[in-house]
Every structure is written in structure tokens, then in C-alpha cells.
């Protein structure tokens, strides 16, 4: 075990996979020379050459489409859309081509494509640089969606995503690049896509969450423990396919659940998860499942306003207490 930041873990994953398989290429703005603004691709071009670490112009629709074509013809591209907000430009290639080509074309087309889309609001990045659009991808059959939090999970799941023969949307969080954690030293640490993990065990209520909100939920759980409330925190790690077995097993233990995500509450992942729990686990529920998410407002610039819009520890506490109140 070594302690690493998320950034280091992601960088390592890319290094390892590119060394392991010469078909893996990386493309995106500033991915080569600069190592991308967040440092995730730092050093790759030097190691593997600019043929495989491609600095693209600002042409998201086209270079994502190129990733699609390359994936269909023998390469394993890792395409980066610098901010999740701009994935809107690449949606056609992701939704209408990458997600569907295999199915439309008789199962004959391979699409081992990874699209990295950094999410994460806060710090005054404002409305067009702060969004988490995983709910959109959840809605597209043919995609897989992964959203790890811990450095170990970031490394393991990026490696898994690159090895997966399906198009994978990889949600890394730009606000947690500096989070430190223990990462196994083993030479080939891969985390299986589709498996959630228990970040904290508890008995009174289940918090289902992912990405930066894992940290928020753990903080809330500490606070609640002082009041004698025992929270179980489920870190989903993969959003599609979502590990309902783990979630439902937890709800069976606690009878209560709150889904927490940074993305806006309306139409977010929480809506889908709560609906599924309603269908699959109704008789386990001792209280209505609740959701915590950002307010339905474009993320404002001003610090206090931004703070008011984004969900925090207090919102989680409020939701837990509401659930336990039986009102």
C-alpha cells in the first residue's frame, strides 16, 4: 500500500495501461504537451510519444468522433472532454454513435472507448464549468458510467474502463484530485466495474452516494454518530450498471435510505435510484427514500450563493433527521 492522490492514481493507471497495451491512446486538449490542466496525463507524451498522446484542437464533436472511429478499427482511445459541461458538444458521437454502433451494426463493431469527463462544482467555476451530467448518460443504453472517489478506486476503475470493450464514461472529480488515500502496490490493481463498496458500516440509515459526496456523507456520518445515529455509507463507484444488490442489502439492514449527489436533485441519479428501490425494495422501507442534490439552479459565481446551491454536510444531516423523524 502507498498513499497517493487521486491525480497520481489516475496518472498511474494511464501509464500502466499504455505500457501494457500499445493500442491504448490518449486524446484531448492539452493532453500531450501540458499534461492537461489537471495534471492527469502528465508525462505520458514524453513516455509514449505524441502519436499516442494526442493534443487535439478544440473540436470536441470531431475528436470524440475520431475516438469512435479509432475504437471501431482496433485502437483503445481514452478521450478527454476537459470539463463535463462541454460533453454537450460531443453528445452526438457518444449517444448516437459510440453507444449504438455495436447494436445497430449487428454486434460486429467494437467500441472500447473511454471518455473522461471531469465533474465537480465549487470554487467559483460558475455555471458552464461546474456541471455533473451523469444522469444523461445513465439514460443511454449502450454506455457504462463510472464515478470513483478514493484514489484506489480511481486507479482501479480507470484501468478497468480502458480494458472494458464497451464505451465507458469516466467521471473523475476535479475537486478531489488532491484527495489522498491508500492505493495497493500490486502491479495490476483493477477494480471491477459494477460493484459498489461500503465506505462505512451502520445500522440506522443508508446513505447512497458517489464521487465527492462520499466525503460529505462520511463527514455527516461522523457528526450523526455523536447523536447516536449509525449511518451506513454506500459508495456506488459505478453508476451504470448500478450495484443494486449492495444497495438493497444495506436498505434491508437499515430500512431507511438517502441518495446524495452533487448534481442537481431534479432528474438526477437519485431519482432513478429511488424509483428502483421503490419497485424492488418497497417492503424493506421504514420511511420514504430521500434525495439530496444541488438546487435546480445554474451554479452561481458568488461564494455564498454557490454554497447555498451545492449540497453539503448540513443537507445530509437534515435529510437523515427527516427520515428518522417518521413525520
Amino acid at each position, binding site marked *: 500500500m502507498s498513499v497517493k492522490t487521486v491525480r497520481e492514481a489516475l496518472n498511474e493507471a494511464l501509464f500502466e495501461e499504455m505500457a501494457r497495451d500499445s493500442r491504448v491512446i490518449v486524446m484531448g486538449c492539452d493532453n500531450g504537451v501540458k499534461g492537461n490542466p489537471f495534471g492527469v496525463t502528465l508525462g505520458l507524451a514524453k513516455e509514449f510519444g505524441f502519436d499516442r498522446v494526442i493534443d487535439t484542437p478544440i473540436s470536441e464533436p470531431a475528436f470524440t468522433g475520431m475516438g469512435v472511429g479509432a475504437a471501431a478499427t482496433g485502437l483503445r482511445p481514452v478521450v478527454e472532454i476537459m470539463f463535463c459541461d462541454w460533453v454537450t458538444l460531443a453528445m452526438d458521437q457518444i449517444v448516437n454513435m459510440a453507444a449504438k454502433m455495436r447494436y445497430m451494426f449487428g454486434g460486429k463493431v467494437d467500441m472500447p472507448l473511454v471518455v473522461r469527463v471531469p465533474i465537480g462544482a465549487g470554487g467559483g467555476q460558475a455555471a458552464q464549468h461546474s456541471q455533473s451530467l451523469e444522469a444523461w448518460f445513465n439514460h443511454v443504453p449502450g454506455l457504462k458510467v463510472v464515478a470513483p472517489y478514493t484514489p484506489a478506486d480511481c486507479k482501479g476503475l480507470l484501468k478497468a474502463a480502458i480494458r472494458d470493450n464497451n464505451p465507458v464514461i469516466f467521471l473523475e472529480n476535479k475537486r478531489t484530485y488532491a484527495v489522498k488515500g491508500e492505493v495497493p502496490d500490486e502491479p495490476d490493481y483493477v477494480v471491477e466495474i459494477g460493484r459498489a463498496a461500503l465506505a462505512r458500516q451502520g445500522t440506522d440509515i443508508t446513505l447512497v452516494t458517489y464521487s465527492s459526496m462520499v466525503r460529505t456523507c462520511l463527514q455527516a456520518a461522523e457528526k450523526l454518530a455523536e447523536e447516536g445515529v449509525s449511518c451506513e455509507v454506500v459508495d456506488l463507484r459505478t453508476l451504470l450498471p448500478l450495484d443494486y444488490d449492495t444497495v438493497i442489502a444495506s436498505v434491508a439492514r437499515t*430500512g431507511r435510505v438517502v441518495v446524495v449527489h452533487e448534481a442537481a436533485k431534479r432528474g438526477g441519479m437519485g431519482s432513478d435510484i429511488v424509483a428502483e428501490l421503490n419497485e424492488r425494495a*418497497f*417492503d*424493506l*422501507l*421504514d*420511511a420514504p427514500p430521500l434525495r439530496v442534490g444541488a438546487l435546480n439552479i445554474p451554479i452561481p459565481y458568488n461564494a455564498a450563493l454557490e454554497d447555498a446551491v451545492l449540497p453539503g454536510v448540513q443537507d445530509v444531516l437534515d435529510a437523515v433527521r427527516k427520515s428518522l*423523524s*417518521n*413525520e
Partner: protein
Amino acid sequence: MPKYLILPKIGMNMEEAVISEWLVQPGDRVEKEQMVVRAETDKAVQDLFATESGIVRKLLVKPGDVVPCQQRIAVLTEEGEDCDPDGGEEPSAAPPPAAEKPAAAASIAPAPAAREKGRIRISPLARKMARELGIAPEALTPAQPGKRIVKADVLRFRQRPAAAGEAGVFVPLSRRRQVIAKRMAASAGEKPRVTLSATVDCGELIGWRERLKQERKVTYNELLVKACACALGRYPEMNCVSEPGGHRVMPSVNIGVAVDTPEGLLVPVLKETQRKGVHQLAEEFAQLVEKARNGSLTLDEMTGGTFSISNLGMLGVERFDPIINAPECLILGVGCMKEIPVVVDHQVCIRTCMQLSLAFDHTAFDGAAAARLLAEIKRMLECPVLMLS
């Protein structure tokens, strides 16, 4: 100035009464000592008297109310006076949190299940659990009013005493039984009780009863009463009732005889048994039994005893340890007559005998005194002619 009627305390042990019906109404003029209200005490239904005179303006209690003694029950004024329409500041009779109330949860009126427009607010999990346990959701209550019924509430319900259908039918204590329970517990707890027993040869007694029966109906109960009365006549210092700090020796031997009624145990008291003949006792006793059975014994008929007899012989009981009927200090338990082998003149022969158990309050007497009394009772019963002396 308005005056108030209060609920009078008419028995030594009376603490409260349940109003049965008013005998007067607002507007009536009542005189002090006039019977104005009928109420049930722990002994019987009684008419209670007015403690003031005046014109009834407002009744402060209503049938069914449990009213403590000395509490205001009506407002009276003189002619021409105005009356405060709200009457006195006494609250309308709210049942005091009496110690008599049993701890059993069933008698605590449950808060109605939280309802919204006729629907019960209950979580899916709780509903499922209730269904599996055979509990109707309507029987459940939330931890606090207005909250949703959840799993914890189902578990809480489950831990209550067995409800109908699970382990028998729950029978809450009636008022009568509450009193009995209280008395028995107090007696058993407070009086250091010792029981002495003796076997009585009933040969002569049987013959005497046969002879008396030819005149008029007589049961063994009257003969037992007479025997005890005579015995207490010899030891008059034992004819007493407990009082705090000591006991009071009474002039009259008033013997209560336990009677089984549908409502439970009642002990009507035969007064001045020392000077009444067996036939008179038989007559009186028959009347008391009749009244006991239809619930019309008066307070006087149920109090004032100095000695009690409990005869379970007709039910086949051979011997038992009765609990003293406080505030008395003695009780005689009587078993059944049966043929047993006895030794007479070094020979075994068959005699009809019965067992007596005399329980006494060791606060009042010692064993020797009680033994002497028992021996005297036995002597009377074995040789009834001695009752003439």
C-alpha cells in the same frame, strides 16, 4: 355566596366513588342529610347525602365519573342569589391517577392510530411486518401522535401482554377485583400471618345439624359461626380489629362469612353472633347471601366484622391457608368433611372429619393464644352441647 356539596366519605376505607345517578337536579331545593346522589363505592352502590342545604344550581359531576371523597359535586345557592355559571373552580371529575389502577397496558386508552383522511400512515416495512405477525394496522400506534407508524412501533406492540387470539382473552380487573386485589395484597404484605390447623371429628356436629334441620333449614356455616362466636366469647380479647399502632377490642362478635358471587368474593357480616341463635343466624345469612348474589348488600352489611370464616369444603378442598380479611386479625378456613382413619383408644377406626385452618395476625396475638382459640372452636364443634354454656 354559593355553597358546594361534596362527596361524603361514608366508609373507613372509602377513597372514591363512581357516580351512578343524580337524585336531584338543578333547581331542586335540598336539605342537609337528604339523599342526593347514588354512587358505587368499593363495597356497594349507595345513596349519598347532601352535606349542605340550598338550591341546586349546577351539577359538577356526572354518571360514570370517578370522584374522590371530599370533592365538590354540586353548586348550591340561596334563593335570589346569582350563581357563577362555571360553578366552582374544581375541575370536573377527572380520574385521579389512582394507585388502584392496574399497571396492565390494556386499561390505558391507546392514542388512536395516526390517520390522514381515514388512512393509516404506516411504512411499507411496518405494514409487511404487521401482516406477517397477524397484527391489524389499526391496532398499531406511532411512538408520537401524528408520526408515521414504523417497524419500531410494531416491535413495541409485539412486546405487550398477549392480546386476544394469541394466548387467551385478556380480562381487565373490575372495580370489585381491584379492591379485592388491593386488600389481599395489603393483608398478605402487612400482616405477619401464621396458620394453625386442627382436625375436627364431625360425628356430633352432623347429628346436631340433622336435628336442627328438622325445625328449619340450617347449614354447617351457621354452626361454624356459632362455634366461633362461643370460642371468642371465652377469649373476648381476641375479638378485635387492627388499627394503626395497635388493635381495638370490639364488644360484638361480628363474623363475616365468605360468599362466592359472579362478581367475585364477598364477605357479608353477621352481627352480634354471640347473642343470636343458629336459626336466626341461618335466616340472616340466607338473606345476606341473596343480597350478595344480586349486588345489593349495604355498606353496613359488609363492614364491622371481627372474624371471618371461609368455607371451601363444599368444593372438595381439604385444607387451605386463607388470607386475613383486614382490618380483622383472624380468619378460619374450613375444609371438606370426609371419612378418614383415626386412632381412638388405640384402635384405628373410620370417622368423618374436617380440617380447620386458623390464620392469625401475629402483630395482635401470639401462637399460643391463637392455638387456644382454635382448640376452643374445635371443642365446640366436636361437642356442640358446649355451645350452650
